């Protein structure tokens, strides 16, 4: 091939309306997804400026950030004091402007990034933006997707375009085969530990390698979801047969001859042989163990059988101070074993790890067991379709029999918007951020896979699944 290109280059160049100079391009945006927190700010700003959506068929709004997860929830129920007005504002604007609106009680409802793949809103080679840093989740189906601010979202509403600085390219090659009981979450946490929470600044990241090729769309979504945690705003997996099989028949996927035309186009998108990346990282997955974070940045992560590191081993003085601050906040001391550390809360939810395969992995461990008394165990499915599918398989019964609460779908307890349930407690959580205060006042969060969270819920302490 004369001019081999990466997947990223093909998709980027496909969307350039105009070069703006200095490496910035005005890009066509195929899909804008908005939620009731930041999305409602964009919608209101647009209305106040007396503007209207430029291409409403390409805009989707979903109620998911502030809406309550309580079973039997009402249309504006929220633990956030401003939740009701933001939910209602988004609802009214969506109806007034005729946007594709997915309300709290729509059977398709769920966390935006889960919904966007389930419905085929995201597709290979698309540009998709949303006011949420985990938007790259939908890179799992080969979309170029990234998080934006409310002002940028207002701009996309008004123009269906957005100017962006072209990033550099990075490829992560996840090679080898995962051991039993090791998941995509463990891969991405270990990668962040290796390259650091700022390891991807300025890069668009392609996840590749045999361990990714053999992975389902749901596992790929977990990888792409956390690219922002190493500061790569864009994370994606180039489309293959797994992608096309997944998307075929989804509500917004093309049908009939249009599907064939699209599929042909999508098959030409993967990175060409010989294409150059600005950076490549090889990662061998064959000896990977389950990962659990110990600190207040996702880069502060360990093998589950590891011991809390001494800050003195960090590479520079700021990292040492950061590690000490993290230990103080997390109430841990160097040398302590991570496994066996008592937890107060076990949480399964979020755009990272609350799809059907995640719930199945947790249920397999919970079946026939009870959550240790005194532990708050909560499951918030990633979407209403995930919840229904889990219920059809009887997973909800397994969760409830074990002592888990079984909630409606939303962003839930991933971020603290008003419910102080987790204040001063230690959680083990399938979410994506262990920042100070992320899940509540003085809440200490340990990130892990659904299997590890389920095993820890039973044991009442951090525990590797499948070990007695």
């Amino acid at each position, binding site marked *: 091939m004369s001019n081999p290109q990466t997947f990223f280059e093909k998709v980027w160049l496909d969307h350039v309306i105009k070069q703006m100079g200095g490496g910035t391009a005005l890009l066509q945006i195929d899909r804008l997804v908005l939620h009731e927190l930041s999305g409602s700010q964009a919608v209101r700003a647009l209305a106040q400026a007396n503007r209207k959506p430029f291409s409403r*068929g390409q805009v989707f709004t979903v109620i998911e950030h502030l809406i309550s997860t309580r079973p039997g929830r009402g249309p504006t129920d929220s633990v*956030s004091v401003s939740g009701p007005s*933001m939910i209602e504002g988004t609802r009214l604007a969506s109806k007034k402007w005729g946007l594709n609106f997915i309300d709290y009680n729509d059977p398709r409802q769920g966390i935006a990034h889960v919904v966007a793949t389930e419905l085929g809103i995201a597709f290979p080679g698309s540009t998709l933006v949303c006011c949420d840093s985990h938007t790259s989740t939908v890179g799992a189906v080969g979309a170029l997707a990234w998080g934006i601010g409310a002002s940028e979202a207002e701009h996309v509403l008004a123009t269906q375009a957005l*100017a962006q600085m072209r990033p550099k390219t990075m490829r992560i090659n996840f090679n080898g085969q995962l051991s039993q009981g090791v998941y995509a979450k463990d891969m991405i946490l270990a990668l962040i530990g290796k390259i650091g*929470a700022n390891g991807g*600044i300025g890069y668009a990241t392609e996840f590749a390698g045999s361990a990714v090729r053999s992975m389902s769309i749901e596992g790929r979504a977990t990888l792409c979801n956390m690219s922002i945690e190493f500061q790569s705003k864009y994370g994606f997996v180039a489309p293959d047969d797994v992608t096309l099989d997944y998307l075929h028949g989804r509500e917004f996927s093309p049908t009939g001859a249009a599907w064939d035309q699209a599929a042909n186009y999508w098959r030409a998108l993967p990175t060409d042989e010989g294409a150059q990346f600005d950076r490549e990282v090889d990662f061998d997955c064959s000896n990977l163990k389950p990962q659990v974070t110990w600190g207040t940045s996702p880069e502060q992560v360990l093998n589950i059988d590891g011991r809390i590191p001494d800050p003195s081993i960090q590479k520079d003085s*700021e990292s040492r101070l950061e590690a000490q601050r993290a230990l103080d906040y997390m109430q841990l001391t160097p040398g302590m074993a991570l496994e066996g550390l008592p937890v107060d809360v076990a949480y399964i939810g979020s755009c990272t790890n609350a799809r059907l395969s995640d719930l199945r992995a947790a249920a397999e461990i919970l079946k026939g067991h009870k959550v240790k008394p005194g532990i708050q165990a909560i499951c918030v499915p990633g979407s209403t379709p995930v919840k229904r599918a889990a219920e059809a398989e009887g997973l909800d019964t397994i969760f409830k029999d074990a002592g888990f609460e079984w909630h409606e779908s939303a962003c839930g307890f991933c971020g603290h918007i008003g419910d102080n349930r987790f204040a001063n407690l230690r959680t083990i959580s399938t979410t994506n951020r262990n920042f100070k205060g992320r899940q509540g006042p003085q809440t200490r969060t340990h990130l892990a896979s659904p299997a590890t969270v389920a095993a820890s819920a039973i044991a009442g302490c951090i525990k590797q699944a499948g070990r007695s």
Partner: protein
Amino acid sequence: MEQYISVTGIAAPIMQINIDTDQIIPALYLGGTDAKGYGAHLFANWRFLADGAPNPDFILNQSPYTQAVVLLADRNFGCGSSRERAPKAMREFGLRAVIAPSFGDIFFNNCFRNGIVPVALPIEHIRQLVQAVEDSAGKINITVDLQTKKVSLPDSLSFNFEVPETLRIMLLSGVDEIDQTLSYQNEIEVFRAADKSRRPWAYLAPTVTLPA
């Protein structure tokens, strides 16, 4: 966009790495339909004690840093959530520039839309600025000049910096970004027509019929 040429004033060093937007403004304070009211919650969990009283140990509660217009920080500042209310809260507090070795990418873009210039400098240069701040008990004035792309101290240090040129020009001119893009409407329409024949599946007709 609000016009921005240069700012001069007190600089507050918060020399930590990975200061995420959850620290800059916790999610609890993101709600509300008002365009303003976020400055009071800037660094809420650091600036205030559990009982709501100001934390005397936090630098932005200490004179002269209560008047800070520049923030100095270590790498990966503004990582995490895309919340635009992080730079909004900084701006309401009075901050107009933040100098760090690197920034969270979404935060970086959000800054320009809220009258804040994110300046990337090598950590060695930032340490020199911090030293000058400490030597003057915080009283030294730092200038961030977007026109000349320079960070400078009176009669001493001066460092060049780079920001994306399109965003720089937008701030210097104060042009409205949406108006500017709409001035390319013809190019947008031409692009969309050609793209639609190439990738028809990317263009969804509205699914909702609006009353005439």
